[in-house]
């Protein structure tokens, strides 16, 4: 039941020598070689709020189990960004087209992953965001 995540970072001109980093990870349960076996599938929401919205609600049962999160800002507008926070700590901003792929420990029930369309206005239009969660625990809940 293998799920693989491949990241390729490439540039011919950001440094004196080309950058070409390609890495494959097989998504496994915490501390084992057993494959992750659950997923929310790919979800899509349209953000139209400058305040934080819970994208994935933490579940204390997920504490330090293996979970992987993919989030992408699907806006075509490079200036529109989504601020991503975990446990109220800002991680970074996903500008139009940017994605992230991170582990998620859910150290407690406050470790929600939240997103905000921080510079959204009624004239900018919605910011489409897609996301997926790959995880191992048994009764995970998501809240989009």
């Amino acid at each position, binding site marked *: 039941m293998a799920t693989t995540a491949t990241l390729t970072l490439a540039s011919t001109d950001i440094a004196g020598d080309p950058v070409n980093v390609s890495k494959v*990870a097989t998504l496994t349960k915490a501390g084992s070689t057993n494959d992750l076996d659950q997923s929310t599938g790919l979800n899509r929401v349209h953000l139209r709020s400058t305040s934080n919205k819970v994208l994935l609600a933490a579940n204390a049962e997920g504490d330090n189990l293996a979970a992987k999160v*993919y989030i992408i800002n699907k806006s075509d507008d490079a200036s529109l960004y989504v601020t991503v926070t975990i*446990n109220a700590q800002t991680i970074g901003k996903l500008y139009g087209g940017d994605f*992230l792929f991170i582990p998620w*420990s859910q150290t407690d029930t406050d470790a929600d992953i939240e997103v905000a369309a921080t510079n959204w206005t009624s004239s900018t239009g919605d910011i489409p965001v897609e996301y997926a969660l790959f995880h191992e625990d048994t009764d995970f809940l998501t809240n989009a």
Partner: protein
Amino acid sequence: MATTTAQLILTSTDLLSDSLSLSSIATLTTAGSSTGLTGTEGLGRKKTSSTTEYTLFDASAATDDKAHKIYLKNLSTTASEYFEIQVGGVVIGRIYAGDWAFFPWSADTTGTNCDIDITPSATNMTLEYMLFTDE
């Protein structure tokens, strides 16, 4: 202007009843523009010698609130070994052997410094990393 791309491919033939094949390509640009990022600290490796917390990237050394990107990979081949990643003192998650992570970094220094800290689960582990900067 440099052109740097990050491509993610997620695949599985048996996780779901239909095959999963997802591909996303992002061109790494400066905040709010289509101008390519021009800064990088290059691909690096950090060998750890204890299970204490290390600061990998200091937020005060980077421009606040920009479009920096971070790549991390645990090079261990022992499945139980992991690095715990913290941003601004908040635990994000663990990358176990072979896992990697790629994410934006605000490098926020208002209030809590948004440092990137890592804590290895065992001695003598190696982390591969790369920072693309928006300066």
